[in-house]
Every structure is written in C-alpha cells, then in structure tokens.
C-alpha cells in the first residue's frame, strides 16, 4: 500500500537555525506532492506543492522543498527558522491515475522553535 514516511516526530530548534524535515513516499508512479502546516489552534494550510517542472519549489514564509525522484523524497527546508514557525508539518501525496486525488499523509513532524 502507498505510504508516506516522515522521519522526525519532534524537532526542537533555536531561532535562526536551519531546518530540514524529511519525507519519503512509497509509490512508483507519478505523484503530486504537498507540504501542509498546522499552526497551534489553526487548521491545515498549504505550505507548498509540486506537480511537475523544476524540482525545487518555493512556498510561503521562506520555505522550500526539493523533489528527488530517484530517492522518492520531498524534503522541506528553511534556512533560518523563526519562533512563529512553531507548528506541525505534514507531508502528503496523491497519485495520478484513477478517478480522484485523496491525499495520503505522513504522521507529521512537530517543530518547536525556541526564542
């Protein structure tokens, strides 16, 4: 069955540190890839997405992600985190082909940024 793995359950960083959150998926076909973020007390919102083209995609708030097809990975990065980045981050995929695009999510990574 298709699955999404996020390697880190909880990451704690100090402000200005660099961030990389891992995401791997187990599906050999063509996929659309997403990172969603959930700030405390808020609902899931899209951070960035990859459908095709340049494998390095830029999202909101200075986040970027790189799609590496050979590694089935879509890691999220930010050069310098801020306290306001404290949130839970979810990687998700949907596969092309078939009639619809339900998202398959990883378990999420909680990011805590110390001021």
């Amino acid at each position: 069955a298709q699955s999404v793995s996020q390697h880190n359950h909880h990451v704690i960083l100090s402000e200005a540190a660099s961030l990389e959150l891992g995401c791997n998926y187990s599906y050999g076909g063509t996929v659309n890839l997403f990172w969603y973020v959930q700030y405390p007390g808020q609902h899931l919102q899209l951070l960035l997405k990859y459908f095709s083209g340049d494998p390095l995609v830029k999202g909101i708030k200075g986040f970027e992600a790189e799609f590496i097809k050979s590694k089935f990975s879509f890691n999220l990065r930010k050069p310098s985190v801020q306290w306001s980045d404290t949130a839970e981050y979810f990687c998700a995929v949907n596969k092309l082909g078939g009639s619809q695009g339900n998202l398959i999510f990883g378990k999420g990574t909680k990011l805590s940024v110390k001021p």
Partner: protein
Amino acid sequence: GAGVSQSPRYKVAKRGQDVALRCDPISGHVSLFWYQQALGQGPEFLTYFQNEAQLDKSGLPSDRFFAERPEGSVSTLKIQRTQQEDSAVYLCASSSSPTGRDTQYFGPGTRLTVL
C-alpha cells in the same frame, strides 16, 4: 470568511449514540473530501464527493459511517452507534479541481470524543 467551515467544532457522545458532522465547503468547489485524524497521526482518507456523487467511500472504517452531499455543496458525515475508537478529529476539505488533485482547503475539524 470564504474558507471551509465545519460544525460542531467539538462533540461529546456517549457510546452508542448517533452523531452528525457538517461541512460547508468553499462555494463552487466541486470536490469534497472527509478525513479522520487520530491523536498523533496524520489525516486518513474516508470518502470523496464530486458534486453530489460519492465516487469513493473506500476509507470508511465500517458500515456505521455514512456520508452524503445531496445538493453538491454542504456535506454531512454521520456515525451511527458510536464506539470509543471513533474518537478523533474529522476534517473536511474541498477543492476546485474536479478530481481533487490540486490544492485541498481544509476546515478546522470536528473533535469527536466518545465516552
């Protein structure tokens, strides 16, 4: 606002009670998804509507779960004879894409607690 809304935000039910959870998608969005998010997990797909047609209900965990979207806008997820394992956050998402493969916009969720 113009986002996805869900009601109630919180629901406490005694085991064996029936519950109904409502989702108001973004106006004009064709695709509507329901997800279930257990504590410490990522959202998991339950069912998908394209307009009023329920095209996929493969994620519904049992025949106690039933969803409808009779006029292609508002959707209701009904759970009959609730069990403790039904305790979770139920998320609704909508998309303008007919297949739902583009960005899905999430509501705040309904947190269901079954005692």
